[in-house]
């Protein structure tokens, strides 16, 4: 694959022209609406060794699809969290609002973004390959982002923070953000454990070293993962139980 430092996802509606001036190091992918961006796609892009991802959406309150741009804003919040959990700088993801009336070109936005990216040293690629640890983290983040808990939370954000929940209560935005961060962290660790044990059956202690947590916390996660049928006891070595991931679905 040709090395590209920046990928720009762009809402179809943002620039009316087909002749975009795009810098050399950038790939542009047009999507129907920037709200269509699945967090997993962005994480996948990073896993492919791209240095930065820019999402260009229509400036609120204008959206061809009513509020797709606001959905994207919510998704980006979560993507940033997952990226930073993976060990990359969250600023590598940038959401820009563009209006069709703006005189500037996409290249202007990309240029500013690549300037900002220089601070992090361009691409996280080292010698054409991602650090295996980061790659594993990104895969864990991707699998967390495609799992039920984070998606359902993200999908209900508007309902919870702007309308009401099932009990008729409105959740304050700050409270929701804390909740989302919390759940993102938990899910990230659980999926990382799942990925690690899929490669090779591991003990709680070995896992605790790899995910940098206390063994007791890892055990809590394993209990939860067992309950979800994602992990099972493989065998016991002496007195140490060794766990192995189960294939999901």
């Amino acid at each position, binding site marked *: 694959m040709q090395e590209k430092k920046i990928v720009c996802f762009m809402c179809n509606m943002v620039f009316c022209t087909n002749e975009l001036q795009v810098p050399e190091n950038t790939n542009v992918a047009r999507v129907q609406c920037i709200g269509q961006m699945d967090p997993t796609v962005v994480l996948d892009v990073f896993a492919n060794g791209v240095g930065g991802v820019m999402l260009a959406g229509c400036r609120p309150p204008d959206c061809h699809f009513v509020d797709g741009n606001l959905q994207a804003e919510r998704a980006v919040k979560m993507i940033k969290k997952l990226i930073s959990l993976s060990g990359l700088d969250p600023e590598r993801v940038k959401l820009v609002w563009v209006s069709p009336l703006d005189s500037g070109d996409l290249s202007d936005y990309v240029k500013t973004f690549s300037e900002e990216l220089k601070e992090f040293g361009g691409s996280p690629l080292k010698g054409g390959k991602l650090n295996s640890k980061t790659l594993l983290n990104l895969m864990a983040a991707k699998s967390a982002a495609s799992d039920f808990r984070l*998606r359902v939370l993200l999908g209900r954000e508007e309902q919870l923070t702007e309308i009401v929940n099932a009990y008729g209560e409105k959740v304050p935005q700050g409270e929701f953000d804390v909740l989302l961060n919390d759940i993102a962290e938990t899910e990230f660790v659980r999926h990382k454990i799942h990925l690690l044990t899929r490669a090779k059956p591991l003990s709680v202690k070995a896992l605790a070293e790899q995910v940098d947590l206390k063994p007791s916390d890892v055990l809590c996660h394993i209990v939860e993962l067992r309950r979800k049928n994602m992990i099972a006891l493989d065998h016991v070595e002496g007195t140490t139980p060794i766990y192995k991931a189960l294939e999901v679905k």
Partner: protein
Amino acid sequence: MRYCIPDFRLEKFVVANEIAYIRDLGVHIETGTEFGRTCKSGKSCTLESLKNEGYKAVFISIGTQKGMGLNIPGEDLEGVIDAVDFLGAIARGENLEVSKKVAIIGGGNSAMDAARVAKRLGADEVTVLYRRSREEMPALPDEVAATEKEGIKFQFLVAPKQIIGENGKVKAVECLHMKLGEPDESGRRRPVPVSSSEHQYAVNLIIPALGQTAETSCLPPELLDEKGRLVQVDPLTFETKVPGIFAGGDIATGPASIIEAVSAGKKAAASIHLYLSGKDLRKARDENIEETIWAKNLSGLKKKQRRYEAREEKPHLSLEEVVQYLDSAKRNAMFESFRCLGCGPCAECLASHELCEGDKAVVEESQCIGCNVCAVICPYEAIKKNENEIAQVDETLCKGCGVCAARCPQNAITMKKLTNQRILSLALNAQEDA
């Protein structure tokens, strides 16, 4: 109307509408037909051929379409174009190169139109040369004021003597100063040249706008007046010297306004009706034919005291303001187009195939758990749970934004076209893909 009046004065859709009214009345319009001579290629007709085909009456209204020449040396140089041809070429969408300095010769409305069009086409300096003074100008005062406001210069009391060329192109126009003498038959003071007052204006384009004359070579000589310039008609009945042949408009009166031509047409139509019914054109004429009376009780109307207020002055925008307005209108139109909901009537537009994705969401029913996230998140309420608690996409409402697919906790929703897989491959191989 379509070719010689610029559309900032008479918009083309007005002309098109008027023609459509006439056509909708059942009038058959034969375009692309040459009149007056028999040519082998293309369609043509003469008065005789029309008579032979069974037409009982003919109405000639060919107008005055030829510009009156300057009749001075150098008229054939490149860079001299008559106002009628100039305006016509612009209206036909021809790409005329308007050079830096333009001189308009004449002081009528056509001269004003030509000057303003030249300015709009990007001429640096446009000067109107007129042989009398401002008071004698035949152009409407409003038009003159508007022209001046657009930055067009006026030179009064000058008349061109000759056009000076270089390599076959216009270089300058030599003019004489004039002074006003005794009034002539039109009531305006006749311009008299001041001897040895020659002076030059450096110009690249000269647009004479000295009035129009008819192209009478296509008409039989028995229809024309003594000078052979116009068709001679009875001013009441609009019949020519030949029975059954009528004429009206500029061809009968000389250059005049549209409303006079409309009036002539209506009166001639009445005459033609009488002629075809075999009645006397003068005696059987009902003079009230033109009047439309809306009020039934006229006497009551007359008694009423009326106060007439001066008409509110219409705002006139300067050229810069118009350009500014058009720019913002263009921006607004572009902006509005982005608000399109893609409801479909534009489906007739064949260009939309390329531009619109026309995507739809698809639910994998075995994976859906009925969590309702998609139904809440869909901006168009296109997704509802069915009786089995499974999300169902109403394809008529779905606009394909893909937000539901991006949020489905079970990954049960995919887009038909722009799937996550495709977005990813676009992102990584966009260059090759394009």
